[in-house]
C-alpha cells in the first residue's frame, strides 16, 4: 500500500538554509547540500526546497540551489521559489528536481500550471498555498511569500489549481510557521474536502504527535515540516516510529529504526528503564556496500 510521507521542507534565504518564524524572522541553519544529505540519511521520504529570498535579493535562481543539492539527494526532490515561467520550470527539473512548487503563479498566472502539466505531467506540478485566518472567520490565501492576500479563499484557490492541472496541493498555515503547536487542522479539513488530488500539509509541527493528527484527513499523503527537522538528530525516523505507534503505516528504510521504542506524552523518545538497558548489548551494523 501507498505509505504516508514525511516531507522535509528546506527554506533557503540567500543561499543559506533557515528556520522561519511567522514568515518574518529567520534563524540560519547551514548549507543546503549538508541539510539534504542529513535528511537523506535520517529516513526522510521527500525533500522540498524553497528559495524564500526577497525578490530583490535573489542572486541566482532556485535551479542553481537544486543543482548544488541534487547529487546528495537520493529521495524525490521538489523545488520552488520565484518560478514564473515555463522555462524556469524546465531549468529546475533539468537541474535535478523531480517536481516544481508554484505559489505566486498559482494565483497570478494559473495558465503556467497547465503549461507545466502539459509538458512535464501533472505529477510534476505542486501548487503551494499559504493561508492565514481571516478576521471575520474562514481563511485568506496569500502569495508573494505571505505578503499579499488575494480574493480567493485557500479552498477556492486549491480547486482552481487542480482544475488547471496541478498534481498536488501543498497547504501551509502562515500563523503556525515556527509556532510548534501543530498543524491547523481546520485548514487541512477545508482543503481535504475541496480537492481530489493528494495534499501535503505544512506549518506548525513541534513534536512527532502533530504529524499523526493530520494523517487521518482524506487525501493527506504528505506530512511536511521545516524547523522541526533541524538541530535534532534522526527527527524524521523518530517521527515515523511515533506515527507507526499511532497506526499510520510508514516506510522504515533508514539505518536507524525507532519502532521498538516507547514515546512520552509529547511524542519524544522515552527513556528506557534500567533493567532494559542492562539487557542491551552493542551490535555493530556494517554499512552495506551497494
Amino acid at each position, binding site marked *: *500500500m*501507498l*505509505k*504516508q*510521507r514525511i516531507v522535509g521542507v528546506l527554506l533557503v534565504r540567500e543561499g543559506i538554509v533557515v528556520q522561519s518564524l511567522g514568515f518574518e524572522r529567520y534563524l540560519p541553519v547551514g548549507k543546503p547540500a549538508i541539510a539534504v544529505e542529513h535528511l*537523506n540519511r535520517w529516513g526522510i*521520504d*521527500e525533500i522540498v526546497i524553497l528559495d524564500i529570498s526577497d525578490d530583490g535579493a535573489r542572486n541566482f535562481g532556485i535551479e542553481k540551489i537544486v*543543482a548544488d543539492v*541534487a*547529487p546528495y*539527494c*537520493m*529521495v*524525490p*526532490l521538489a523545488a520552488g521559489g520565484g518560478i514564473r515561467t515555463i522555462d524556469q520550470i524546465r531549468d529546475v*527539473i*533539468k*537541474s*535535478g528536481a*523531480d*517536481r516544481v512548487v508554484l505559489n505566486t503563479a498559482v494565483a497570478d498566472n494559473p495558465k503556467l500550471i497547465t503549461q507545466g*502539466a*502539459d*509538458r*512535464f*505531467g*501533472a*505529477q*510534476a506540478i505542486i501548487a503551494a498555498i499559504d493561508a492565514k485566518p481571516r478576521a471575520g472567520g474562514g481563511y485568506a490565501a496569500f502569495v508573494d511569500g505571505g505578503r499579499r492576500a488575494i480574493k480567493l479563499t485557500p479552498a477556492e484557490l486549491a480547486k482552481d489549481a487542480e482544475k488547471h492541472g496541478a*498534481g*498536488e496541493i501543498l497547504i501551509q498555515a502562515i500563523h503556525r510557521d515556527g509556532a510548534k503547536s501543530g498543524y491547523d487542522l481546520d485548514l487541512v479539513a477545508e482543503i481535504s474536502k475541496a480537492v*481530489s*488530488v*493528494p495534499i501535503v500539509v505544512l506549518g506548525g509541527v513541534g513534536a512527532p504527535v502533530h504529524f499523526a493528527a493530520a494523517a487521518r484527513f482524506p*487525501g493527506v*499523503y*504528505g506530512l511536511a515540516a521545516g524547523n522541526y527537522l533541524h538541530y535534532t538528530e534522526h527527527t524524521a525516523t523518530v517521527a515515523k516510529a511515533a506515527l507507526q505507534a499511532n497506526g499510520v503505516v510508514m*516506510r522504515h*528504510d533508514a539505518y536507524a529504526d525507532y519502532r521498538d521504542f516507547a514515546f512520552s506524552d509529547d511524542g519524544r523518545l522515552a527513556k528506557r528503564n534500567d533493567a532494559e538497558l542492562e539487557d542491551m548489548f552493542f551490535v555493530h551494523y556494517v554499512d*552495506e556496500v*551497494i
Partner: protein
Amino acid sequence: MGNLSSVASALATLGARAESSADPVRLARAGALILPGVGAFAEAMERLNSLRLVDVLERRVRQDKVPLLGICLGMQLLGRDSTEGGLHQGLGWIDAPVVRIPADAKIRVPHIGWNEVSWTAPSALNQQLEQNGHFYFNHSYCMQAPADVVTATTDVGVPIVSAVQKDNIWGVQFHPEKSQNNGRRLLRNFLNALPDAADEMRPAC
C-alpha cells in the same frame, strides 16, 4: 528530459560511466541505454521523433539487442499507445496500452509517494531486493501490460504493473534513482545484468 541528472548521479555512485545524449551517433555506440523521463507522454514522443532518435533506438534495441531500461515515463513509452492528453502512439516494443490509473483505485491520483513493489516473476533486476520493498512512485498513468512481460505489481487498491521485462528491454514505473538504497540495488542489478562489453552506459534523450 527530466530526471536525467538524478539517474546519472545515482549511476555515478555505483561506479558506472553514464552520459546523457540526444546524438544518434553516440547512442549507436552505447553499451546499454536508459530511457528516463519526467514528462508528458505526447511531448516525450514528439521529442524522440523530432530529434530523430526513434530509428536509432529501434535499431540498437530491437536488432542489436542492446539492454534498455525505461524509467517511469520511459517505461510507458515502450508501450503501444497512451491516452494521456489524447491518444498518442508509443514505441510499441511492448504490446500494451498506457491508461490512466483505474478509477477504482483507492488512492488519489497522481500516485505519488513510496509504495511496495511485489515481484511476480524472476527478474535480473530484483536480486538481493526484499519482496515488497519500498520504491518511489510519481505518475498518473500506468501500463496495462500482458501477463507474460509483467515482473512486478504494486497495490493501489487495485494492482498496477510496476515492472516489465521483454528480452533485453526492462521497464520500471517507479523511480529507482530516487528510491534510496532499494533503488541503488536495482540499478546495480541492471548494471550487473549487462553483457561484459557493455561497461559503458549512456542514457538517451
